[in-house]
């Protein structure tokens, strides 16, 4: 039983490390790769929870995390970035050093909050929750300190990874699968919205004609 918790903590820890990595990436492509790594770690964590808690429905959540957030969305976003030729560099509001320091402080805050208040309850759930909360807060941080819409989307999705981790950490919580599906659909929707938004910004219209003209140029 202890081993089960250690593995889940290990995977949650890997996710937290990727959260830090997200903050210091300089290029959008690298941000997307790091996010894909985090999603794969989440998929593993959820799959492990499904197996160790004997809850087969969680495998669906793991599968969604793996395919949609580990592969499809990063690839789609990278295509969007390449096709529209938007900035390849990450646009920062504050520097990497400051962002990392704040991230560290947030992680400390998450640990302090949960370790103090959930004293006496199932300690394993509380550790997982503390890690998840740190990931959620780092997602916020990313949304605040990075200006570009694509990096903000990644921040949001990273935050959502933290939420799904928290939900699987709370043993036997119903609705986890439903919520993760709903969220993923939503993200797909907003990725699409960013796409439209970006086209508008670049061409000052969302006419398909303008897009066609652009493609004609390239050929």
């Amino acid at each position, binding site marked *: 039983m202890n081993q089960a918790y250690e593995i889940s903590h290990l995977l949650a820890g890997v996710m937290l490390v990727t959260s830090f990595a997200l903050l210091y990436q300089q290029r959008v492509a690298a941000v997307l790769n790091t996010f894909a790594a985090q999603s794969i770690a989440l998929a593993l964590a959820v799959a492990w929870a499904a197996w160790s808690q004997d809850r087969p429905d969680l495998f669906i959540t793991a599968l969604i995390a793996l395919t949609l957030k580990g592969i499809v969305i990063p690839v789609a976003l990278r295509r969007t970035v390449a096709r529209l030729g938007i900035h390849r560099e990450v646009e920062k509001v504050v520097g990497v050093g400051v962002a990392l320091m704040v991230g560290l402080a947030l992680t400390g805050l998450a640990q302090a909050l949960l370790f103090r208040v959930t004293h006496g309850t199932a300690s394993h759930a509380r550790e997982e929750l503390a890690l998840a909360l740190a990931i959620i807060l780092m997602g916020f941080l990313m949304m605040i300190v990075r200006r570009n819409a694509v990096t903000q989307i990644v921040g*949001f999705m990273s935050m959502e990874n933290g939420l799904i981790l928290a939900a699987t950490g709370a043993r*036997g919580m*119903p*609705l986890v699968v439903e919520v993760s599906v709903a969220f993923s659909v939503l993200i797909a929707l907003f990725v699409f919205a960013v796409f439209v*938004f970006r086209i508008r910004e670049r061409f000052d219209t969302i006419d398909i004609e303008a897009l066609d003209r652009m493609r004609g140029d390239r050929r």
Partner: protein
Amino acid sequence: MIHAYQVVVAAPYIAALVLLVIPGYRLGAIANVAASGLTFGAGLWLVVSERSVGDYAIVDEFNIVFIGINTLVGFTTALFSASYIGHEIETGRLTPNLLRFYHAMFQAMMGSMNLALVANNIGLMWVGLELATLITVVMVGLYRTPQAIEAAWKYFILASVGISLAFFGTILIYLAGQPVLGEGVPAMTWSLLQEAASQMDPAILDLAFIFLLIGYGTKVGLAPLHAWLPDAHAEGPTPISAVLSGLLLNVALYALLRFKMIIAGQPAALDPGPVMISMGLVSLIFAAFMLYQRRDIKRLFAYSSIEHMGLMVFAFGMGGPLANFAGLLHMAMHSLTKSGIFFAVGHIAQAKGSQRIADIKGLSVTHPRLAVAFALAVLAISGLPPFGVFTSEFLILTTTFARDPWLALLPAFGLLIGFGALLMRLQDTIFGEPVGPAHRVDASSVPMVLHLLLVLIAGLYLPPALIGWFQRAAELLG
């Protein structure tokens, strides 16, 4: 056997699917009104039907107050929208396809709000509220102007913060309930959680409440989490502004109050009252001052909504049967008045072709009847008798005064500041030399007049049956 609450939730969703395939926006608008009317009928049926508590749905005195208002304002907004939205096609701001999408989304949003209101499962409540929020995000960006997209983006970012924090708070509540109620659905069932609250770990409940307050508080529009609200109101279609202010903020407040009821069951946990009182007061006073700087008429009334939500949160924070009663009454009055005002603002925007206050001068010369209705509505929301908002504000202030005279000064101060700003703006728009174009207004004034009449009647005479109903709801709130 079909229950009323099932119809209230299912009818809008089914209507949304039907509306997606109905060709022609006129037919769609009529179908939208019909569906909203049906839901309103179901809402009335719910009010008189038996109270019940199930695994997933709950019907008690408290939530039927909200559902009643929700379905009523949904119906009148659909009526307004049907006569209003055709104009947007003529001016080329919307295409027929977008309008079909708009009607379907309107119903889906109503269904999601009703789902959040009848849910007895805290996860389901969260899902309903978030669905409704995200649909409004899409609706705010409907015109696809750069400003609308920016407003939608800002709304999305801040709403997602709210979504996540509220969900984390929900997980924490589950964790608090799990040792007492066992794993699975029971630990997410609101009615069971409330009964078992006294055995839960107070420390987890404290933490959960903070997350829920920030998460759902973002949706209520409490300062300093309100930044999305004015933009979203200003850039979206006017019927959506009416529904946002009149209904969605209420649903978020409802969720917050449900959790307050759980936390209140554990005496060792932190007392939600003082936290809510201070957040409410900050929002009230801050928004009242912000009213002076507004140049856009929809933004002006969006800040007024923040002010009134602040007052409600203050009243519910005070607690006790009397303050809760006043808070509920104020919520009902604010919903009716504010959506009525947005109907009027829609008329004005069509008449003047602009929402900038500077462009809306001399309304009494060009559109005398509209000017009178608008003036009455603004006087009503600023809390003048004989309208219902006066009654509820008066009740809130007097109950506060009875308990803590010094504390009562703060909301009174905020309300006075807000009153001044609204009066000043009202004068700007109604009187003076008319500027700019003066178009004919096609939109129907029936919903606006109906809302005003209801608020007026409530201000003059509250039927004992209604008082009794609100009192029972207030008692449940503790």
